[in-house]
Each structure stands twice: as structure tokens, then as C-alpha cells.
């Protein structure tokens, strides 16, 4: 039916094809992936420590902490809630750490380096007599929140949310005073403590 078919020798063609198929197989091969290399999750924050130091009484140091060593997923994070003295003034220092890698990565210094892109907020829940004031400033004179001071009122308890915002609009209304409402940006950290004042 196909005259030109006669021009080719069937067996030659089969040989040619086999060679081609073999070549392609060699090309396609059976290559392997490489073994992975260890990765430090440089941005992961596993630990938030808030240190309260009583300005009148150097021995009154309270550490509130939230720790989730295995990062998102796995086990729940654990919270250590603070108990503060009523009607006192505390110096408040915040530290962010990645304790999943060895050695521990200090994220606080990264936040300090890019102070203009970060701000820590302290959201005070109902029932808690707690007022926070920023003590630190970035290069533009806007608050950061790694260091501040807090005054406690009468006894009581309530929630205190510590929030680290990346890329906030620090000049928006209320943001410099510590109101997160208009801050925008991304929340890199949001941990909730229950504070007791007695």
C-alpha cells in the first residue's frame, strides 16, 4: 500500500530505532536528588521573654515567658504568667529568641537593628490596671517597645497581649502611643499572658 515503505529495510529500521531508544534511556537515566543540608530557621521565633524589674526594688524581677520550641505544629507552646506588685513601676524588657537552633538565635538584636520596621505593642485586657510607656526610639524618634516602663495600679488580673508587628505604620493615629488599631503590618508574634497584680 505504501510504496516508499519498500525503500527501507524493516530490520535496519528496527535496529536504528533500538539505538535511538537506548540513547534516550541513557539520557533520561536514573538520576538522584542530593541529601539535604541542615537549615537554621532564621526567622522562627520560639520564645518570647518579658522581664519586669521593679524600679524601686531591684530584687523584684518577674519573667513572663511563652515558649514553643518545636515551632508551629507539634507540641503546644507553654506559658509562664507573671505576678506583679500593685502600685509599682517596672522596667519592661522584651526578648525574642529562636531556641530551636543551636546556638540559640537572638532575634531581639535583629529587631533592634531594623527598629524602624518593628514595634512591640502591649494590649491590656479588662480588669488589669497596667499602663505601658515606650522608653526606646528608632532613628526617626518613633517607639520600638523592646524597652519600656509599666506602672501597675490596684490589685486585679487580666490579659496582656504582647505583639511584635513587622512593618507597622508608626506615624498612624495612636500608634506612637501604643495603640495597635491603625498599625497595619504583619504580626510576627502575638502571645497572650494572664497578669496578676497583687
Amino acid at each position, binding site marked *: 500500500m505504501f510504496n516508499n515503505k519498500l525503500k527501507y529495510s524493516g530490520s535496519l529500521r528496527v535496529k536504528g530505532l533500538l539505538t535511538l531508544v537506548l540513547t*534516550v534511556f541513557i539520557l533520561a537515566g536514573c538520576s538522584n536528588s542530593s541529601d539535604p543540608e541542615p537549615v537554621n530557621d532564621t526567622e522562627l521565633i520560639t520564645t*518570647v521573654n518579658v522581664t519586669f524589674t521593679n524600679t524601686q526594688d531591684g530584687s523584684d524581677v518577674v519573667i513572663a515567658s511563652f515558649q514553643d520550641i518545636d515551632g508551629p505544629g507539634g507540641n503546644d507552646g507553654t506559658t509562664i504568667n507573671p505576678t506583679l506588685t500593685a502600685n509599682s513601676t517596672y522596667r519592661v524588657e522584651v526578648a525574642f529568641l529562636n531556641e530551636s537552633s543551636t546556638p540559640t538565635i537572638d532575634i531581639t538584636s535583629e529587631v533592634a537593628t531594623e527598629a524602624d520596621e518593628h514595634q512591640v505593642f502591649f494590649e491590656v485586657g479588662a480588669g488589669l490596671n497596667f499602663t505601658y510607656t515606650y522608653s526606646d526610639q528608632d532613628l526617626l524618634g518613633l517607639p520600638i517597645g523592646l524597652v519600656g516602663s509599666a506602672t501597675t495600679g490596684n490589685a486585679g488580673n487580666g490579659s496582656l497581649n504582647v505583639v511584635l508587628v513587622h512593618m507597622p505604620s508608626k506615624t498612624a493615629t495612636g500608634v506612637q502611643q501604643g495603640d495597635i488599631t491603625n498599625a497595619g503590618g504583619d504580626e510576627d508574634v502575638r502571645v497572650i499572658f494572664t497578669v496578676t497584680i497583687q
Partner: protein
Amino acid sequence: MLKKVVAVLLFVVAPNLALAQSDDCELKLSGVVRSSDSQKAIPFATLQLIEEKKSAVADSQGRFVIEQICSGTFELLVKFIGYKDYRVSVVLDQSDLDIEVKLDPTVTNLEAVTVEGERIGEVASLNTSELSQTELEQSRGETLGSALSKISGVNVLQTGPTIAKPVVHGLHSNRILILNNGIRQEGQQWGQEHAPEIDPFVATNLSLIKGAAAVKYGSDAIGGVILVNPPQLPKEPGLGGQFNLIGASNNGMYAGSGYLEGGVKGIRGLGWRLQGTYKKGGDARAANYRLTNTGVIEENFSAGVGYHKTGIGAEIYYSNFDSEVGILRAAHNSSSSDFQDAVGRSEPAIIEDFSYEIGVPKQVINHQLIKGFFHAELKRLGELKVLYGYQKNQREEFDIRRGDLANLPSLALTLNTHSLDLDLDINARGNWKSDAGLTYMNQVNDNRFDLGVTPLIPNYDNYTFGGHFITRFVQTKYELEFGLRHDFKHYQIRKFDENDVLIRPEFDFNNTTGSLGFVFLLDEQTDFRTNIGTAWRAPNVNELFSDGLHHGAAAIEEGNEDLESESSIKWVSNLEHTSEGFSLDASVYYNVITNYIYLRPEDITLTTRGAFPIFRYTQTDATLFGFDLDLSLQLSKGLHWVNKVSFLQARDKGNDSALINIPANRIRTGFDLKLPESDKFKDGFVSFSALGVNKQRNAPRTITIQQIELVKSLGSDVFALNGTTFDILDAPAAYMVLDASAGFKLPLNTSTTLGVIITVDNILNSSYRDYMNRFRYYADETGRNMSLKLNLEF
């Protein structure tokens, strides 16, 4: 150019004046059926002499005889799958006639199949729906997914306006297969926000095989198979080409795409093509606001050269796809409180002025393909085809990161895939037509480890071996088809376990699939196909090993090493009827999937970013039942009423609940008016249509992020009693949008045509959200968009 090549329809050669006969209905019509293109005989074509109500089927050599015909003038109808129906008037006047019928390959459909033979022996008992030439022209400049969604049964799963994945009968990602130019598209298709890395401008044919064609194509074809084919390479000398210019109002998109092609003088059968596309779009706009950071840039090119003649041919093809896609800024959230603020807002928190700039989050993707194809006629055996493909897929995803890390992606994957397909289209024996093939694929996935982020999926390599045999028993009025396939897939994973110890777990999956189908040619205008087929897929690496917070979904997703293969039985039936002024294409399907892999909520975990639900990949049984209906009625000359309906009911049988991300039922109805033609004005049309999409009433339950937080703070185990999946927001309301388009072609001279198309989508600038858009939580769909599409063909 192509049109000219295939314009030759039929030669009635050698009307053989045999012995004169008396007219007592003893005349004989005989002949041979060939392909107009390759000149090869077409076995088993069906022939019908309409007025005489006589029919015949050609033999394996393409020969046919119809006997006992009275003298007269008859209409002869010749049909064969993959070729255009052919009608010719035959005059039998006192003598027998021996004719040669040349069938024209279906240009927009199976040209690759029938002419280059890449997919001969495709599953005949499965219906193939394709985008018409007009639909294809109207969708130029859109994403591949959105173009495909014009086929009934295909929806899109979107991630904002620029990322669209096709969904076939409710299934997507690794549950469907895309064959790009005959090669299985292998990118990181597991990701819901990973669109196919294909330049839609390359394709002149987009079609869908609606059934489980796994028996032919191997694993993953559980939902269906999408075919994306470029036109054939030219075989005749001469230069041709096409150029497209497109502009769109909504996102300031402009695109140019074109190709040049030609044959080589003196070497018939040698042809080449060079093609390229540039596309740039800025932030899209919803009805009432900008969708900030939804720009896109694409730069693609491809080149092919091939030599084909009767009985032998070879082709080589290279394509490069480069794209950078912005992801809606407001859809990136870090803490559960950020999610609470963002989800369900009437408008996003971050809205900026229009810009072409693409900031983070974004995806940067490169996909390269090298294809080698060789085919040869083997004496007495059949046609052997060797198809080799090499794909290199590079994907980088950029997130909002601190400091110096801002310029580093947070995910960078390179996937290298080699594939080799051998296919033997066996010469017909009697009424049996068969096809056998072997498949090999090797895949290597590598991460970058200097990004400061633990990779979402590990390094791995895998190989797959498969073999298939499909056979068809062909009769005049019906065909019976049977196929069998076996595949073996091996994975080797390389990762650190939770104690930072390097592990290299291995997985093997063995699966046998089969398919049984019938084609009934009810009359010359109607055929009915029914097919029951099994399909399978191995769990993907992300399902086995992913681990981390999903920034788009407020969820932590954990892999599961104990997953088994997912397998499906899909039954699909299709009735197709075309007659003067009326066409109907109806499909019904029922798909039962055992070991359906899904994300099951297991727990809520407290992190430094708040409380998040943990989802773990688990298996259940699922059923998907639905129908697609295409109905077109001619109301008056040139005016058609066109309707498309899709209905789908999906169920998680294991948990007796709904499945997530299943397209809602929809109907598109509209009017097409074809304008009168003249020598100076061709293919003029005006069309107007309305798309109505119901609310997904069969959506999973809703648990908001506030509720997750609350439940966690109360310490109760919310998923202990009910482990069915949930959504963080109710399914959006039903909606309707109106679209219109108009166009025409102006022949500038004998070989040059200018085509103009104007489309207006969402004419009323309605604001609405679609359940199948993953950004339905954050923002509305795009508002009104007007586009102008110019096409110069020469």
C-alpha cells in the same frame, strides 16, 4: 497556512467506468478512505449512503464496498474519529464506481493524534470536548485555566486574578493530567496556588478528555486529561505566521504574541516554527477597589523543527516559560489575629494605587521543555512512536521577610523530569485495532538550603514504569474498547527527621488499572459513548511529608507517611448530537474514589503567632456525581441560543460530610449572532451571555478563627467528636455576571487577515466572590474588564 494545507477535502479520482449494467439495483460503490494529510489509509471508517439507508465499514486497509445500489444520486457520509465528517454527492449511473475518499483531520482537535500519531489509540470511548476556534480566539491573553474553563466540566481554582488551575469534574492538581504537546506536564502541581506553567498562546487546541483515561496516560488521570497542543509544523515551503496584540482595561494588561513558521524549499516535509510571547499586567481591580500586588509578567518562547513524511518522521521542540506573579498583599497573614482581621472583610486592609510593580509575596517560575519525537512505520506491525521529554521546573516563592532575607525566596525548588514513551499503534487485524505502549519517567526534586527556612517538601527522586494495551473491536454501528495497564512508582525521600537525623525513606506503589467502553453510532448525527475506567495516583510528596504553616489558609498542614495510593472508578457517558440548527453534548459521570486523600483537622496548636488548627493528610472514600450539558439552538439565520450547564455533587462518604473546594453548580446562557459575510468582512459575530453561579450549598461546616482561639483557650478538644473538614468562612453567595464580545476578520489581501475582537467581562461591574477563589476570604473578584484583541495572520 494550515488551513490551506487541509483545505483539500476530497478527490473523486478514477471514476471507474466498469461494465455497463442494467438498472436493477445491482450497482456497487467501492473505494478506499485515506487521510488527506498523510495519504495513509484509514481503517474502519464508517460510510453511509444516506438515501439508500446502506452503510459499510472500511476494512483494515481502508477499503470498502457497498453493494446492491440502485442507480441515482446519493449523499455519501464518511465518518471516523479524529477526522471531520465528510459528505459528498455520488452519482451512480449504470456502472460501478470506485472512489478515493480523503478525510480531513480535525484541525483543532486530534491533528496531533491522527497525523503525527502521537496519541493514536487514544481512548475512543471517552468523549473529548474542545474549545472552538472562536472561543480560543476570544480567550487570548487570559490564563490557561481561564481559557480551559470555557469547556463544560472544567472550572478553575483561583488564587487571585492571576493564578488559575483547571478543575475537572471537581478534581484538580495531582488528580488531573495535563499533556502539553504530548508530554505530561510536570511542575509542582500539588500546590493549590501553583498554576500550570504553559504559555496559552502556544496552543491552537485545548481539549479535555472527561473520563479516567489513566489506562492510556498513567497515574493521576483520576478527574480527566487536558490536552494542550500547538499546531502542526508546516510541511510545505513558504513563510507564514501570526501576530497578536492584546490590551485589557482592568489591570492595564498588554501582551504581544506571535509566531513565524515555514517549510524548506526542496525538502518536502521539513518545517519549523519560532514563537514568542510577552505579557505584562498590573494590579487588577475589583468592582470597588484595587487588588494590590496582583501584577504579572510573562516572557515565553518556543522553537520547533520537524521532518515528516509517509511512514517516518522526527521532531524536536523547545519551550521556555518565565513568569513572575504577584499575590494579593492582603492575603498574607502571619498571626491568627491577623487572619481574624483579614478574613471576611468587605475590602482588604491594604489598598494602594494602581501599579505594575510586583512586590512580595510573589512567585517566580521558569519552566523549560525539550521534546524529541520520532515515528516510523514498521512493516506488518504498525507505527512505532518514541516520545522523549525533559522538563526543568524552577519555582521560587517570595514572602514578607525580615531584613537581609527580604531578597531571598522562602521556597526554591528545582524539579527535573525525564520521560520516555514508546507507543506502538498496531496495524488493524480484522476488526480489531490495538495500541500498546511503555512509559518511563524519572524525577528529581531539589531544594535550596540557604534560605533560612526549613523546606516545605523534602528532596526526593522517583521513577515510574508503566505499560498499557488497549484494543478496539470496530463495527459499523458500534465499537467496543478494552484496556489494561500496570504502573510501578518508586520514591526515595531525603530529609531530616524531628531529631535532625538524616533519613532516606523509600516508598513503592504498584497499581493495575483497566477500562471498558462502548461507542454507539446511533445515526449519522448522533453518537453515544460510555466508559468505565479505573485510575490511581500515589500520594504526593507534600501529602507524605509537608509540615508547616500555610500562610494563605491559616492552617498548619502535616504530612502522613502511612498514606496508600488513591484509586478511583469513574463511569462517564456522553451523548452527542449535531444537526441543522441544533446541537447537544451531554455527559453524566459518577466517580468513586477510595482512599481519597484530604486534610483532616486534628488539633489546635498554640504558637508564638496565636492558635492555629493542625490539619493532617488522611484518607477517606469520596464520590463525585455530576453532569455537563451543552445545548445550542438556532433561533433564526445566524442567531444561536447557547447554553452550558454544570452540576456536581461531591461527598466525603467516610465522614458523611461535604468535600471542600468543589465548584458550585452553574449555568451560562447566551446568544451568538453571526454577521453576514462578504469578501471584505468575515467571521463577524456579536455575543452576549450571562453566567449564573449558585452558592455552594454543599460546603463543609464553618469554624471561624475566633472560634478556634476560643476553643483553645478553654482547653476543649473541638475535633474529638467531629473530625470532618471545615472552612474558616461561609461559602459566598450566588452571583450572576454578564459578558459580551464581538469580532470580525478583514482579509487584507489573499494571504493576510486581520482579526479584531472586543470583549467586555462583568459588564455591570458587579462585586461578588467565587467559592473557587482561594482569596474569597479577603477580596472580591475582578470588576469590569474590557479588552481589545488584534490578530494578524499571514
